């Protein structure tokens, strides 16, 4: 099993924003994650690869707090967040988009993102605080919409969006809180080939503008290689390698695991 505090930064000091230590998830006797240890550096783009069933989504669920690990630790900016539920981690700067689009269907696109902005700003329980047209959360929302590229659809109900735009809304919801770590679960899922470069550019743009670390689960090899500074390869719940794309491709264990399989 590979350990990811390695090559480019032997001291492991370059501001690790997210780390897992020996993470395992066992459900009904099936080991879905086996001792996964990796660390994500500030502002780095890391791709998590692996065939279906490798445990990528489970890993994301554990990282974002939707699922509890059986053993192991998750650290956000050095602090142990393993026991924290999803909403706490979100407040601590961890944002996530979903593989199956999950938005607020009866709200407009703008309202969706404004709500996310309000959530991040805090004080949402204040019954005495009005939400009017001048609400500062709208500014945050417009910024996020601009970064995600869906300002033209702002007034439409979220449920009426095309698939591609829904994915963008997903991203907008995730970034409006200016997260320090952004987990993108299959951002190009279901997209037409011609739409992919736009998304890739957007992801790089997000990292440049927000300075956040981005971890993405990706099936398309070309997208992963093109975007990622490091790639984490998973297989049957274990982490095989986590390194630069070139090193990973050359890694013997990775090759033997995927001999004959197309990633």
């Amino acid at each position, binding site marked *: 099993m590979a350990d990811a505090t390695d090559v480019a930064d032997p001291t492991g000091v370059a501001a690790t924003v997210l780390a897992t230590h020996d993470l395992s998830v066992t459900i009904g006797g099936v080991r879905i994650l086996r001792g996964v240890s990796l660390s994500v550096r500030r502002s780095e783009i890391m791709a998590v690869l692996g065939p279906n069933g490798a445990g990528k989504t489970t890993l994301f669920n554990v990282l*974002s707090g*939707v699922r509890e690990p059986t053993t192991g630790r998750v650290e956000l900016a050095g602090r142990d967040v393993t026991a924290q*539920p*999803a*909403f*706490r981690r*979100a*407040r601590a700067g961890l944002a*996530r988009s979903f593989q199956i689009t*999950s*938005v*607020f*269907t*009866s*709200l*407009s696109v*703008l*309202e969706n993102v*404004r*709500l*996310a902005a*309000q*959530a*991040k700003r805090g*004080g*949402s*329980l*204040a*019954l*005495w*605080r*009005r*939400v*009017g*047209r001048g609400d500062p959360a*709208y500014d945050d929302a*417009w910024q996020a919409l*601009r970064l995600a590229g869906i*300002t*033209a659809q*702002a*007034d*439409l*109900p979220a*449920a*009426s969006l095309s698939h591609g735009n829904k994915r963008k809304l997903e991203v907008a*919801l995730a970034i409006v*809180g200016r997260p320090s770590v952004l987990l993108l679960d299959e951002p190009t899922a279901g997209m037409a080939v011609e739409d992919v470069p736009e998304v890739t550019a957007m992801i790089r743009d997000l990292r440049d503008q927000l300075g956040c670390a981005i971890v993405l689960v990706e099936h398309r090899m070309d997208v992963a290689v093109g975007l990622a500074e490091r790639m984490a390869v998973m297989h049957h719940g274990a982490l095989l390698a986590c390194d630069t794309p070139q090193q990973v491709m050359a890694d013997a264990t990775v090759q033997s695991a995927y001999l004959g399989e197309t990633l």
Partner: protein
Amino acid sequence: MTSVEAATRAQEEPSSAVAGTGGPERRPVRRWVIAGVLVALAVALPYIPLRIPVLFDGPVNGPGALHLLSLMFVMAAIAMTYDLLFGYTGLLSFGHHLYVAIGMYTTVVVLGETDYGLGAALLAVLVLGLVVPLLLGSICLRVSGIAFAMVTLAFAQAGAIFVVRDPFRITGGELGLAIAYQKLPERLVGVFNAPYRYWLALALLVLVVVAVRWALSSRPGRVWPAIRDNEPRVAVLGLRPYTFKLQVFVLSSFLATLAGAVYAVVVGGAYAEVTHATFVLALLVMVVLGGTGRPYGALVGGLVYTYLVHRLGALSSAVQDLPAAVRAPLMEPLLILGTLFVLLVLFLPGGLVSLFRRPGPNVRDRLRRALRRKDAE
């Protein structure tokens, strides 16, 4: 914001108002004017000796009509509090009537069984209206969906049992309790003081409408529809759904308790019917009839339902030469209302209010209407 940013923003943002869940905010002035006129009309009603045959027995400012209108206002208010829970936050409660009953019975019992007066009764209502839903809500909201519906029903049943069995001999059991008239201000007692009870009911309705609109335009008020649409996503955003649900539960139940107290004054007592599950089923019919989660849906539904329940029988007698087979069902308003309800659920899930939406290429509303049915899970 620099001028460049401002210019970009102006270009990107549509000049039409922000689309929210509460309906378009364009031309708010016109809405205020309409509302003001309606309220003024309602306030002036007891001075207008107008006769509307068939619709009302006697003049519109007579005690009969005013009493009916008072009931309509109280029910509409309660329906609005229920819509806050069900229509806006997606919490299907089968125990909402418990709070109306608490409001009613607390008022009547404090006045009847203790030496205290109306002030103390009101204070008791306010306190119970906050404490009880806080306590019960914190328990019931630990579960959701059908389980939540059933727990709320269970607690309301406990209340009903308490009222009917009357272990302390204070509730009057199945027969109910008359209010202690001598302790009420003179203005509120007696047939000829119907206008004052009418104004009290109107005041309650206005208060509830204002409170509900105010709550919905607040920060938590924007979270509630999100919880209805996609609760797990709300948690991922960094908000704890439980707290917000508890907040709206307490607010809604508090207002319902208050309405119960006014109800007791308007009808002159407390009745065990309020504790039966049929009451909350009627609330459900009211909000669906009017249109769930819409600005005035529950209001319209409550008014129409209460009117029909009380007047359908009289209406059928007014029309001569009705064969008995047609007359009998008309005497049972719930037959028509129940059937109407079924038809609404099948064909017009947006309720009556959706009929009055501006027709035309209003795709957004049509979509929303259709989606509300599909996403009503």
